[in-house]
């Protein structure tokens, strides 16, 4: 029993220590964005790697999510004779919740894992050490551009997810199930208010920063060898997905 309590205590200490380490890492990384050299080119490269390369998968996920929501929503609303509210149901669900959360999870699976693997390999092959010995701060050259790219790219990807999802819902609700096109868009225009959009943007900003922070941190502190990189990559995907869902609850409770 005492052993169990000891292990639990050690685990808790490790979690607190890692959370503290991540916060220091984040502050160091972001503060370096204010110190020259500013590296706009590196930021653009990372926006391409994290954002542009995730566009297709985010569009696919958005389209199918919108289609499923229209299908489910249509049969539920039909029972109450409210098919006309389909547009507002799809748009609100996507903008407030599904868009930011699913985009975050997709980015974590595609770009987050790639970021961890890239930095992890740089660590084990001494490329980060090489930067340091050339008087180039690895945090500024490698980590800072990725953090900024995450904050910029994820909200844009979320907007793409929302638009494609709404069009997917239109395809199923209007084209296939016969809901009036006018009521689909009019309901949307009536029910979606700026607070919903702002809430979605804030969530996606926080998710973007969280995912890339976890990915960079895990890669930067990876264990030795291929096993270390594989473990770090796995931890990134799991931890960032859990943190996205946890942050979603916290932020939703603020915006409701």
């Amino acid at each position, binding site marked *: 029993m005492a052993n169990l309590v000891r292990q639990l205590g050690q685990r808790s200490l490790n979690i607190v220590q890692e959370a503290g380490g991540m916060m220091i890492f984040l502050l160091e990384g972001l503060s370096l964005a204010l110190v020259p050299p500013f590296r706009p080119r590196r930021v653009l490269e990372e926006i391409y790697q994290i954002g542009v390369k995730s566009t297709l998968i985010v569009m696919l996920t958005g389209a199918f999510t919108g289609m499923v929501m229209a299908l489910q929503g249509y049969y539920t609303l039909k029972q109450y004779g409210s098919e006309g509210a389909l547009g507002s149901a799809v748009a609100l669900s996507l903008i407030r919740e599904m868009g930011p959360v699913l985009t975050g999870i997709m980015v974590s699976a595609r770009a987050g894992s790639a970021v961890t693997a890239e930095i992890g390999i740089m660590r084990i*092959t001494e*490329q980060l*050490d090489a930067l340091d010995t*050339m008087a180039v701060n690895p945090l500024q050259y490698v980590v800072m551009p990725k953090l900024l790219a995450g904050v910029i790219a994820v909200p844009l990807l979320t907007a793409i997810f929302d638009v494609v999802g709404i069009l997917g819902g239109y395809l199923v609700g209007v084209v296939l199930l016969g809901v009036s096109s006018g009521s689909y868009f009019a309901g949307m225009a009536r029910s979606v208010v700026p607070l919903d959009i702002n809430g979605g943007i804030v969530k996606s900003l926080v998710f973007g920063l969280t995912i890339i922070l976890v990915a960079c941190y895990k890669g930067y502190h990876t264990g030795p060898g291929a096993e270390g990189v594989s473990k770090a990559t796995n931890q990134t995907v799991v931890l960032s997905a859990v943190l996205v869902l946890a942050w979603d609850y916290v932020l939703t409770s603020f915006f409701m």
Partner: protein
Amino acid sequence: MVKIINLVKSFSGHKVLDGINLTMPLGQITVVIGKSGVGKSVLLKHIVGLLKPDSGQIIVDGQDMSLLGGRQLREFKRRFGVLFQGGALFDSLNVFENIAFPLREKTRLPEAEIGQRVRFRLAQMNLTSEVETKLPDELSGGMKKRVALARAMIQEPEIMFFDEPVTGLDPPMANTVFHLIAKTHQESGYTALVVSHDIPEVFQVADQVAMLHQGRIIAAGTAEEIQNHPDPVVQSFIRGEVDFLEA
């Protein structure tokens, strides 16, 4: 001159360096030999500022490196050139970009001047201009080492560090790399530390040799003095005898 005074470092309670005292004389090549895993690379990483000692001092030209931190330490490192064990070339950059990297990052030289310097270093390493556009993955082990050496030399460092410079290379290529180290040292006159277990090949570049064993320097002197050293551990290592305790 680099002076290491009573350097101690432990990892998870295990003492890897246990009071190292070593001097790297100005303009000379100091070779540290010892078995794999004995802490040679750990020693090198302390001197280049990648690891912090538990205690002890590293003094470079009168400056105690342990008193420097952050940006100050990083700028101090501009005087160093390091050839890492695996080359540590940046995967995403081609050969030209890898060699030009320190100049592009740390100087305001025009591209034409950078190009000239990169090509001079490539030629110095007996590499043709055809390799300029190749990625590190497309190079052989020996070529990688030579490109990494060209990159380490591009800023004309005062102090060079070589971490196992010929590990994984075939004997002719290993000799080529040692020849390049001797040639660049003769041309530039840098102070150097070579960490290696390649005996006796490494002796061809050594002005002085120190042997690291169980966290301490157990023997130091010229290559000849080390080869004739009375310590049985030194002799056993030089002769490449099987270590029955480890085997």
